[in-house]
């Protein structure tokens, strides 16, 4: 594929996960050109669904449904599908619902997971081993197994058709507790000793020493949890029937039946739903990639 010297990883700027972009100061050889060609071929394949959705979304409904499948429609491109979706549809409402439920899930998850992770990492207390074992064991529980009893529980608590029904069951991430605990374990204890001698409380040590040092891992966990919550389908789909509370992924499911064969509007809606996270990704690409790489192996 490439000549021996060329496969050697180039020197890279130091970073925790080695995910920094390498300096590509290598000459072109047949091998490298072949590699670029294959990578480009895959990239094109991977971009086609986006491109085709975009092309369709900017067609008139007549052109989109014309038996002549073409990238360039005879009546030209038009934003009318987007206008229609914005006027008739609920995309802004669904986006808002997704945003605040995902933000709430992320915030609650971070607070409760960091607190328990600190206790597991730093405090000696009776029952710690049991607690740790139970939390580890719970990683194995697949969320779909819980939908039936959780639904029944939400009915009993009278929470069905409220945002709480969507939020509350999504804040438990045992794997993330361990990601945080592992990180806390690596923070040198000496940093806290002085504070302990001064009689600082645990809570103060936690908020003023541990948390500020843990920003990168907190960001990684937040990103991981937020993406998961933003895109979650099954539980929000079950938890609410109230049209005013639908999240983006669930709301989008309802338009298929509502718009039927209006392909341009279907694609316009899908693209509008995809847009927020894609834009966020363009801005925070490095943080998101690093976040996924650090938390990813802990379990999804």
């Amino acid at each position, binding site marked *: 594929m490439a000549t021996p010297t060329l496969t050697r990883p180039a020197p890279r700027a130091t970073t925790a996960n080695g995910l920094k972009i390498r300096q590509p100061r290598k000459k072109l050889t047949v091998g490298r050109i072949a590699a670029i060609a294959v990578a480009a071929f*895959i990239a094109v394949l991977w971009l086609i669904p986006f491109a085709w959705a975009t092309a369709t979304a900017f067609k008139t409904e007549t052109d989109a449904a014309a038996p002549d499948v073409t990238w360039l429609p005879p009546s030209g491109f038009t934003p009318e599908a987007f206008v229609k979706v914005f006027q008739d549809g609920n995309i802004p409402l669904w986006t808002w619902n997704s945003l605040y439920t995902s933000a709430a899930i992320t915030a609650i998850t971070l607070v409760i997971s960091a607190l328990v992770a600190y206790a597991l990492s730093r405090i000696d207390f009776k029952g710690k081993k049991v607690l740790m074992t139970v939390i580890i064991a719970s990683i194995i529980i697949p969320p779909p197994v819980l939908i039936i009893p959780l639904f029944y529980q939400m009915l009993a608590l009278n929470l069905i058709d409220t945002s709480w029904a969507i939020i509350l069951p999504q804040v438990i991430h045992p794997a993330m507790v361990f990601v945080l605990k592992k990180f806390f374990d690596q923070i040198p204890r000496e940093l806290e000793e002085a504070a302990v001698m001064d009689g600082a409380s645990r809570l103060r040590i936690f908020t003023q020493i541990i948390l500020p040092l843990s920003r990168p891992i907190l960001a990684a966990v937040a990103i991981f949890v937020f993406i998961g919550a933003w895109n979650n389908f099954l539980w929000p789909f079950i938890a609410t029937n109230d049209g005013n509370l639908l999240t983006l992924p669930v709301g989008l499911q309802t338009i298929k039946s509502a718009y039927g064969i209006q392909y341009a509007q279907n694609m316009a809606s899908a693209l509008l739903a995809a847009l927020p996270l894609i834009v966020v990704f363009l801005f925070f690409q490095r943080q998101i990639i690093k976040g996924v790489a650090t938390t990813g192996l802990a379990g999804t």
Partner: protein
Amino acid sequence: MSTSTLSRPRPENLRTSGSRTRSNLSGWGFAAPFLVFFLVFLVWPILYGFYMSLTGKSLTGANDSLIGFANYAEALADADMWRSLGNTLYFTVISTVPLVLVALVMAALLNIGLPAQWLWRLSYFAPYLLASTVVSLFFTWMYNPQLGLINEFLTGIGLPRVAWLNDPNVAMWAIVIATLWWTVGFNFLLYLAAMQNIPAQHYEAASLDGAGAWRQFFSITLPQLTPTTVMIVLLQILASLKIFDQVYQMTAGGPGGSTRPVVQYIFETGFTGYRLGYSAAISYIFFGLIVVISVMQFVITRRRSA
């Protein structure tokens, strides 16, 4: 896991019984908020779900009494249950292989040190940021038998049209392709991070010995990646077993139940058939399967590393 006594800071070594109590209090105090959610929204439902599976509970509230393991007996004799479980396992097998291999190829290509790394990463990883519903809308449209882009391409190069989501022999593969496009970026990132952590000296020594690129990949990169590969395969199997969204959205389990996964069967018996007790029993059979697979994986990886 727990800290060794030797590395403990001094104050704890000098502690009195009073500070012991204080430690217990603050330990459980810090754990309390998590524990409340954990007990109410995870432990209780998993226990209550088991109880439900032993009752005839339904959404209409008809029969709440305990009926022992009757639901389990019924489920084990239920051809639809077995078929859906079979579909889930089939999907898991045929999706895990490409989801790992393609991710490896993508990461290996980038690891050669291609220019414009962000561009490749963006295009391979971006689909992972989409909701399942978006992916399903994209692919349902591309799979459209008459107006779809894929059949247009096939007929363009002289191949016959494929009924994709409407052909029971093809539908599951169509879902695998959509899933591959959607989630392979995640495994790709994990592989890329692992590859970039392989020390450069390994490659330097090998190239001094005259090992070519292929040799280096197979005798250095792949062996170094083994722990990562094991983890990615495990995570992928567990993720694939939970398949529901794409199938429900693209084929609704059809045609003729040929793609219906077990999670959809749980969903339907519970929320369309209103049989919560029976549905809970199937959930537990599915849970049992996941536990068995996880334990098997654990034993295998233990043996490997031992």
